């Protein structure tokens, strides 16, 4: 097993990068990258936060992370479908230009 | 996902597809043994069968002719050629003068279309100095990207070898 401290460090950097991307990026796909990167950072932390058993990471957080990965994939796929549809309807792939309360039909 | 590929299903089941299915089944059983050893065969054989059947339904290939000895010789030839190919390109990349004269060359395929041509097209990219780019004219002309003008010879050698494996080559017009 590797030196986990290094990976905690990586997780911190990745989280920061993800936050930055989420704020700065306009394109929705990039925002999704950012969220997924943050997710990976948190998955790493979940595994490293529990003490290893028998020289391998605790199986419980590993199982939780596996569930988390499935959920992340589902959400990402749905978000992509939503993005494509949004683009088809409005021609936009970002959320910046808007007047959301404007429309007539709610 | 239920029905697809009318052009495939229309001719189903033919002797060819059954032969393909059988070959895949045997190969997959061997793969299973490689993965699991012999203990899991009660699951592996049905799995191999299902995989072969589904593969035949959705992504059928053409059965390979049964010439174990010739294939073995071919494997040896190919291994040698691909190592040569790797060495050749490595040498050219490392050479300070970067000895390449790249050009596109059309290559007239003499092999029958179908599996032999497909094999040729895919293996060309591993031979010394050649890269298959595109098939033209109903798979009779292969556009080859060659690092040196002479590299096209290796394609000829491969074609002769494949012709031998598949029986007689198509006679020249």
């Amino acid at each position, binding site marked *: 097993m590797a030196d986990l401290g290094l990976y905690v460090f990586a997780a911190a950097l990745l989280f920061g990068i993800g936050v930055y991307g*989420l704020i700065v990026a306009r394109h*929705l796909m990039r*925002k999704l990258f950012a*969220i997924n990167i*943050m*997710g990976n950072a*948190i998955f790493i*932390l*979940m*595994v490293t*936060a*529990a*003490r290893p058993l028998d020289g391998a990471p605790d199986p*419980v*957080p590993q199982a*939780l992370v596996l*569930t*988390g990965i499935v*959920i992340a994939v*589902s*959400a990402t796929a*749905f*978000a992509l479908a*939503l*993005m494509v*549809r*949004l683009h088809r*309807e*409005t021609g936009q792939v970002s*959320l910046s230009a*808007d007047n*959301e*309360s*404007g*429309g*007539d*039909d*709610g | 996902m239920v029905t697809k590929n009318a052009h495939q299903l229309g001719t189903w089941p033919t002797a060819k597809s059954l032969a393909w299915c059988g070959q895949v089944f045997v190969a997959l059983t061997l793969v299973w043994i490689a993965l699991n050893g012999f203990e899991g065969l009660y699951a592996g054989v049905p799995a191999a069968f299902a995989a072969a059947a589904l593969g035949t339904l959705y992504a059928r290939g053409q059965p390979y002719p049964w010439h174990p000895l010739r294939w073995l010789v071919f494997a040896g030839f190919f291994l040698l050629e691909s190592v040569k190919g790797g060495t050749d390109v490595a040498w050219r990349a490392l050479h300070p003068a970067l000895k390449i004269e790249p050009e596109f060359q059309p290559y007239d395929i003499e092999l029958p279309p179908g599996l032999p041509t497909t094999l040729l097209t895919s293996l060309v990219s591993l031979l010394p100095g050649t890269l298959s780019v595109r098939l033209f004219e109903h798979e009779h002309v292969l556009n080859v990207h060659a690092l040196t003008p002479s590299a096209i010879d290796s394609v000829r050698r491969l074609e002769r070898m494949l012709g031998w494996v598949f029986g007689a080559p198509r006679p020249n017009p």
Partner: protein
Amino acid sequence: MTAEALSLIVFLPLLAACVIVAAPGLSALSVRLGLIPLPLLLLAPTLEVLDQGTYRMALAGHNSPLGIEWALDPLSLLMLWLNTGITILVSLHASYGFPPASEAGRRFWPLWLILFASMNALVLSADLFNLYVTLELVTLAAIGLITVEGKPLALRAGMRYLLLALLASLLYLLGVGLLYGQTGTLDLYLIAERIEISWLPVTALSLMIVGLLIKSAIFPLHAWLPAAHGNAPGPVSAILSAVVVKVSVYMIWRLWFWTAADWDLEAVALLLGLLGGAAILYGSLAALVQVRLKMIIAYSTVAQLGYLLLVFPLAGNLAFKAAVYQMLSHGLAKAAMFLAAANILHAIGTDRLRRLAGIDQRMPLDVFALALAGVSIMGLPPSGGFLAKWLFLEAAWEQQAWGWLVLVAFGGLLAAAYLFRVLAVVCLHPRRRLGQRSRRRSPTPASWAALLLAIGAILAGFFSAPVLDLITAGLPPGLGSR
């Protein structure tokens, strides 16, 4: 009996959703089968709780350090009733907008049933990670419902909601991972026993609470809510405002009053209370300037959610009762308002305020429902909203917390202002004839659904005693003494 009933409460709607997807021909039947038995199924757990207090159930036969447990106490029972009652009445409305046998209905109902089931599962769960999974399920189903009609505004709102919700879940998940590392369990009651206060668990808890605050759209993290609730299809707006945002507040309460029961976090409590206060003021003021009815109602939700946070600084018996009561009565009233607004929108094709003049003559039932629900939102007697706010005032008075007292009173005034603005336009506007150009009439049962919910919100003021007794029976451990 209780175990069977609880299992079915979660799994019956899920199975019904599966049947609709598998066999669209059976959708009308399975919608009924997935929803109508639910109140009956709730009877056994209700009796159990009235009898025993709390009911715990270990799933798969593995109890808490490792396995997932369901815990049914008075608070979760009330949430189950709230969810079931509102969902069924709103479903009555939705079955006209999205007939189960239609193409739109086949898209709508599976998500609707999954949303319903997942909120039941969430309310029951006593496991931090299981709560995460159910919360994701709630969120995805809710966003799927927002965007189900594919209208551009709804798509945009759904996208924003989705991004923020994903961020929120990540924060929550990080907290869960840390707490597991500290305690070796995920059971939120067991964690309370095992953990001592130190910076790490406090940070973990804060992360989780911040995530949940985003999901429940508490000011200043509310940015996604008005657009999402204001542009979703009518029944979806109703359920979103009435229940979906509440379940994450419910989770905050659980974490705060159960998991962190023994921690002394007065500063954080004050901060949360201030956020609540800001939400009340901001939401109400924003509601005052909106031009669309649904947006007014959506901002009103932002404001009303603020009250639910006042329970933290006013920590105590009365305040907790008040907050739970606010949750229930606001749920009923807000669902009624959104349904009435949906009917109006359906009838005249817009919900712009200036086009609504005179609509009361055309659609008396809906306007009446709107007004009745408004009474509860404003906190006028004898409604449920009045009782909730009265309890808040009493709690503030008792603790001599004059600031909160003024805030609650002022919040009621503001609510009255934005709601009277609506009613004034509808009933008293000089150009009354404008609203007469109604295109379609809503089917009467759709209006009745709104009216029934509004009446429920009023009746909550009359028949409060059993509910308050129930809340008292289920006061969190830290509060019972105070």
